[in-house]
């Protein structure tokens, strides 16, 4: 499960300088790599919606950033995402999905199932990636769509890509 390295390489290639995140098991290794990278400022958040603001501020100051979060975090961002569309900020987010398959925790299902519809409702373009070997090229395409195509865009990393969480059962 080294697909996270392909995302990291795509961030480097796209000259991403700020990585905002709420700690997440699916993104854990990518986040660790960003923290270890002296050319990237890692910004841990108390809530995902702060990340929308941080990325807007980064762009105002001439830097590119991305937001790493879990599907449950999308629900925390919806009003703030309006900022990206109103001001036409480029926006790229990488979302590890819950509530899709082999979900042990029923509390993750509503927002997991609501992630893509709510992003679409807020005019954020979405792509889903299921195969580990496709993550790299999809990550590059996501960053291109944001920073060359000047769009708001999300890459949804299917739950197949992350280890099953079973709470010891």
């Amino acid at each position, binding site marked *: 499960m080294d697909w996270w390295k392909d995302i990291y390489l795509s961030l480097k290639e796209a000259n991403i*300088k*700020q990585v*905002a995140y709420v700690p997440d098991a699916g993104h854990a290794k990518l986040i660790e790599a960003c923290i270890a990278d002296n050319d990237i*400022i890692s*910004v*841990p*958040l*108390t*809530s995902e*919606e*702060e*990340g*929308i*603001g*941080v*990325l*807007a*501020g*980064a*762009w*105002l*100051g*001439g*830097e590119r*950033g991305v937001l790493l979060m879990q599907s449950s975090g999308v629900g925390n961002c919806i*009003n*703030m995402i*309006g*900022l990206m569309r*109103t*001001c*036409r*900020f480029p926006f790229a987010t990488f979302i590890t999905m819950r509530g899709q398959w082999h979900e042990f925790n029923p509390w993750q299902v509503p927002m997991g199932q609501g992630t893509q519809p709510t992003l679409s409702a807020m005019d954020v373009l979405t792509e889903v990636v299921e195969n580990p070997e496709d993550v790299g090229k999809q990550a590059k395409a996501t960053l291109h769509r944001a920073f060359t195509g*000047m769009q708001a865009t999300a890459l949804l990393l299917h739950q197949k890509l992350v280890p099953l969480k079973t709470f010891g059962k």
Partner: protein
Amino acid sequence: MNKTNSASEYPLRRREVAKKIVDVGGNDFLLVSGLGSPNWDFTAAGDRDTFFPLWGAMGGAVPIGLGLALAQPKHRIVVATGDGEMLMGIGSLATVAIQEPKNLVILVFDNERYGETGMQETATAHKADIATIAAGCGISQTMTVRTKEELDLNVVRVFEDQGPILSVIKVKAEPLDFVLPPKDGAYLKDRFRKAVLGDKGIV
């Protein structure tokens, strides 16, 4: 709810505070102003391309200021927002404290009211103290300003001391005329980037 509030009698007037900040700050600082009255205050003081007024995104002023401060470490970044907007994004103070941006100043114009919705009381009219919350989050310099004398001292510190700084400025709860900045977000973003980054700011 015990009502002990007297914000309508606070001596500092928000429009005069904004004018003083602009006068002392000169032309080099960059401003993010939070949803509502701070926009009208700073527009009344004189709209600039280096001002980014928020017509929405409530709770987002401090995070935007943080991302900007990290991207532009040589500029002083001023976030001017209200108590209601700050309370909605209060967790962002903990996020700021982790980054310790030396160039970031947060000014909370605290009239203890939600101005845009009819001057209803915020939590600061009751028990909440935003300067204490900020200190608890780990913001290195926090203060509360209540008088003209305190303001005169504070405004100098805002532009000279090492950040992050959060200053709560208790201002009179008063209805004032709207003085509106441009509202097209794409225009506001692009004019800001061009002012800060030059022609390469326009993509």
